[in-house]
C-alpha cells in the first residue's frame, strides 16, 4: 500500500447563474460524490446579469480537489470556478459571526474587554447578555468564540467564509 496522501484545505469561488436549483446542484454534487464542505456561502453579486457567487471551503487530496473543480465546471449554470488557495495564496478570507453571551459580574466585564481586543461590536445588550458582531478569518472567529464560551452560555451564528483575490485582477 502506498502512504495516504495528505488532505488540503481549499477555498473555491464559483460564479453561477442565479437560477432556481443552482445551489441544490452544487450541494448535491458535494454530497453525491462524497466531497467535504467545511463552509459554503452564497448570495447574488450582480443583479443585472443575474450572477451569484458561491464560496465553498473544502478539504481533500490534491486529486480530489482537481475533481471537485472539474465537476463544478461541468454544471451547466456554472460560469467560472476559481481555486483561490491555488491561484492566489494570499487571497482575503473573512467570516462574520454573531455571538450571544449570557453572563454576569466579572465575566461580563471580561467579555467586553475581549470583544474590544477583537474589534467586536456590541449589537445588542441587556443586563444579562451581549450580542457581539465579530469579523475576521475563521481562526480569529474560532478563538473569539472559544474565549466567550469560557465566560458563559453562548449562542452562535456564523456566515461561513467569503473570499476574494488580492490585487487588480478580477475573477
Amino acid at each position: 500500500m502506498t502512504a495516504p496522501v495528505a488532505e488540503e484545505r481549499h477555498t473555491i469561488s464559483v460564479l453561477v447563474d442565479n437560477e432556481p436549483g443552482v445551489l441544490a446542484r452544487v450541494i448535491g454534487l458535494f454530497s453525491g460524490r462524497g466531497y467535504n464542505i467545511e463552509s459554503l456561502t452564497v448570495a447574488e453579486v450582480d443583479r443585472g446579469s443575474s450572477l451569484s457567487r458561491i464560496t465553498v471551503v473544502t478539504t481533500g487530496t490534491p486529486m480530489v480537489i482537481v475533481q471537485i473543480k472539474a465537476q463544478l465546471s461541468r454544471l451547466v449554470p456554472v460560469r467560472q470556478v476559481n481555486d483561490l488557495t491555488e491561484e492566489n495564496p494570499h487571497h482575503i478570507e473573512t467570516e462574520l459571526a454573531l455571538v450571544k453571551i449570557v453572563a454576569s459580574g466579572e465575566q461580563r466585564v471580561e467579555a467586553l474587554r475581549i470583544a474590544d481586543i477583537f474589534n467586536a461590536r456590541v449589537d445588542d445588550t441587556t443586563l444579562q447578555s451581549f450580542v457581539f458582531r465579530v469579523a475576521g478569518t475563521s481562526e480569529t472567529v474560532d478563538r473569539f468564540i472559544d474565549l466567550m464560551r469560557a465566560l458563559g452560555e453562548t449562542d452562535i451564528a456564523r456566515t461561513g467564509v467569503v473570499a476574494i483575490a488580492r490585487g487588480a485582477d478580477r475573477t
Partner: protein
Amino acid sequence: MSKDGLTGSEIVLRALVDQGVDTIFGYPGGAVLPIYDALFQQNSIKHVLVRQEGGAVHAAEGYARSTGKVGVVLVTSGPGATNAVTGLTDALMDSVPVVCLTGQVPTHLIGNDAFQEADTTGITRPCTKHNYLVKKMEDLPGVMHEAFHVARSGRPGPVVVDLPKDILQGIGAYQGPEKFSQTKYQPQIKGDLSQIEKAVDAIAKAKRPIFYCGGGVVNAGPRASQLLTEFVRLTGYPCTLTLMGLGAYPASDRQFLGMLGMHGTYEANLAMYNCDVMINIGARFDDRVTGKLDEFSPNSTKIHVDIDPSSINKNVSVDIPIIGDAGHVLEDMIKIWKARQCRPDKDALKDWWSTIEDWRGKNCLAYEPGAKVIKPQQALERLGAAIKGREDVFITTEVGQHQMWAAQFLPFDKPNHWMTSGGLGTMGYGLPAAMGVQVAHPDALVIDVAGEASILMNIQEMSTLAQYRLPVKVFILNNEYMGMVRQWQELLHGGRYSESYMESLPDFVKLAESFHAVGLRATKPDELDDVIGEMLEVDRPVIADIMVDKAENCFPMIPSGAAHNEMLLGPDDQVEKPISEEGMVLV
C-alpha cells in the same frame, strides 16, 4: 392555433420539429394531456406508445445510439417521471443524448402535494446532465432549444424539461432555434495542439503501445471511428475497446485484441498491463476496466483524450491529458503523425506483437461445446455465423452473463450497431432499446440478446412491438438463473445460491404467442441452427428461448480487487487463485 399565438403544447411540438425530431416515445397522463391533444392534430411527429415509462427512456436511448440523434421521451407527472428515473440514470452513465419531457401539476399547485405531483427536477437533478422547470411562458421556447443543445453537446447526456400543465395550456410566442444559437454552454471540442504534439511524440517512440478506446469515439460520430481505424492502421499498433466502444474499430481486424476489462480477453488485459504507452481515446478508466487501481498498467505513459475534463485524473493519473472531441483530436493526431513522417519502432513492435500473439494463443474464449446441452457461447457463435456479413444488424442486450458473452462472441465491425447498458448495468434495457432501434431502422435486423431474468423486467414492451409491427428478435439464453449473480455466489459466497434461481418462469413460447409474436425454443445443440434460421426468417417479433447449460460461467474473468495480470482463464483457475477479502467488498 389561437389568434394571438401558440399554446404551450404547440410551442413544445414546434420546437421538437425545429430540432429535427420525428419520433418520440411516451405514455400519456393527466398533466401532459394538452401535448397529447396537440400531437393528435399534427403529422410531423410520430409517437410510439410504450407500456411503461421506463421502456420509453430505454427506447429513446436505443434510438439515439443507433442514429446519433437525440432521443425524445414524453411522460406525465408523478409516477410517469419517477418511472423514467432508471432510464435517465442509464443515459447519464453511458452518455446518451436524451431529452425527456415530463408533465407537471400547474404552477400554482406545485408544492401542495397535488395529485400525481412529484418534485421531478429535485428527483432527477443527480441523474441528468441538466434539468429545467419551466415556470414562465416566455422561457419555454428557449428552454426547449437549450435542452437539445445541452443533451447533444460535449459529453452527451439526458436532459429533463418539466412542464407544468398551465404552461402547456397557456398562450405564448414561439421563437426558433436560431435565436438561441449562442448559449452559454459551450464545451471544448478542439484539443490543445501542444498536448496533441506531445502525445504523438510519445506514440511514435512507443515500444509496447496499445490503443484503449471507448464510447467517446462512438459518440463523436462515425467519422471518429473511421479516423481511429485509420490511425491504428497507420501505426500498426494493437487496439482494444471497452464494452461501450465495441464497433469503433472493426472486430474482424487482426490489430483488434478484443474487449478488455473484467470479462475481456487475456491478450487485451495483458497488453494493458505490460504496455509502455497507453493511448486512451474516449474511455474513462472505469472500475470494470482497470481492476485493482494500484496495479493498473504500472509502467506506462498514459495519454487520455476525453471531452469531459472531469473524466481526466479521476480514477487514474495520466501523463498527457487532452480535453476535446475524439474525432477532432484524432484528426489532429493523424495530421501531425503524417507531417512529421513518424515511423514506429519496427523491431520493438515486432517483439510486442509476437508477445501478444503468444497471449492470443491461449485462446481465452475457448469453451467445451456441448453434445447434449447447448452452451451459451455456442448459441452466440451460431447466431454470429448466421448474421455474418450482414450490414444491417443491430444488437442490444440486457445485463448479465449473456451480455458479456454477446460482447465476446458477436462481431462488431461498425459503430452504432451495439447498444448495451454499460455504466449502470440496467437489467431490462435490451428489449425497449431494441424497440427504439427498430423504430429508427424499420428494415434492419434488430436482436436483443437476453437472459430469462432480465427480459422479464420490461417484458410488457412485447405489446408495443406488436402494435407497431416491430420485428425485434429476442434471443434468450435461458439458464434458469440470474447467471452473473449465481457466478459471483459460486466464486465468492461458497456456492450458496441465495435467491438467484428463477422459479416459476413463464413458458416463453406461449408468452410470445400471447403477445402476437412468434415463440421458438431450442433445447439441444442440433436444434440451434434451425431455430436461429427461423428467427431470422420471420418478419414478426420473435422470442427464441434457448435452453442453455445452467452451470456455465463467464470467463475469462478478472475477479474484483485483482489486477489485469491475475485473470482467471477458466473454472480450473478458480481454485488456484482465491479471491482476496479486499476484493469481496467490491461490487
